[in-house]
């Protein structure tokens, strides 16, 4: 069964950022709605974005289209988690 609860998806996105970027559990645990990601998190360069999106696809069983990926979606932990949750619910 695919996860569809927002909190569950949020934790999956948190886990993806931890695993793909190799950052600590403590750091990702502190991520909240306002935590800035792309452009603010040094580990998240453009190549790492590709890995993060693909891993989110794998874990949630969703497909993210190229034209859905933009700066706004990647701006903050909140925006990325909301996007992932909206895709998982479809």
């Amino acid at each position, binding site marked *: 069964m*695919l996860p569809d609860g927002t909190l569950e998806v949020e934790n*999956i996105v948190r*886990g993806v950022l931890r*695993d*793909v*970027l*190799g950052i600590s559990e403590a750091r990702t645990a502190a991520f909240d709605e306002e935590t800035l990601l792309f452009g603010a998190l040094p*580990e998240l*360069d*453009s*190549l*790492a*974005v*590709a*890995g*993060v*999106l*693909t*891993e989110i696809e*794998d*874990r*949630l*069983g969703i497909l993210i289209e*190229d*034209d859905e990926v933009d700066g706004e979606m990647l701006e903050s932990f909140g925006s990325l988690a909301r996007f992932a949750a909206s895709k998982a619910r479809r």
Partner: protein
Amino acid sequence: MIDHYDWPGGREAMLRFGPADGPVVVVAMPLFEEANRTRAFVVTILRMLAERGIASALPDLPGQGESLVPLETVPSTDEMGLAFERAVDGFWGQGRKTYGVAFRSGALLDRLVALHGRWHFAPQNAGDLLRDLKRIKQASLGQPLPEFWQYPDPVLVDGPHPPVEIAGNLIAADFLTNLKVDTPLDTEDGPLRTVRLDTDPKAADRHVPGAALWRRTEPDNDLALAELLAEDIAAWVRTCEG
């Protein structure tokens, strides 16, 4: 030890571990950048298999690892699969039973090879590999790519087309096109065991805890996961051996 094998395109190196007789596990690494990220992890597993009395071989494939064949001259996974087959044939010739162990997109390479059994970890199909490569290319360019992104725009003549540089790898445009039709072999073609991470909801014979090292931006290792997988492979080989 470092051994080698011959295939129609030349001679490639092959790392070997474990005893000189009995069944052999021949390993197909993930393709391209994921190979760099997982090589230490895979070698750790093979050393652990040797401790369990099971021999293994890790052949370099054309265009991968230390191969002298330029990647941009490799037209498809079939060519890598042919080399993999020749590495396997060497053990058949010695009367040893051979098992294919593939990680991620390595699962695309053992489909044309006669094996006593296959064991796949987090296998990636060709379509997903192609999506990955396109996404990495897009990320490096910072712009969306068109449908036939692997060819120059506009495509004025039939090939040869220049290779595409993706994260430091020069990949033939036709290789990328051929990925659209590649698919791993399914269970109807002999005993197959599939293991995935427990974060991966796709079907598998077993889901195991651990992190997706192949997505890490820097190579890493996971000794606990390596131990678990070495034990699973060893048990699978013993089961197939009856």
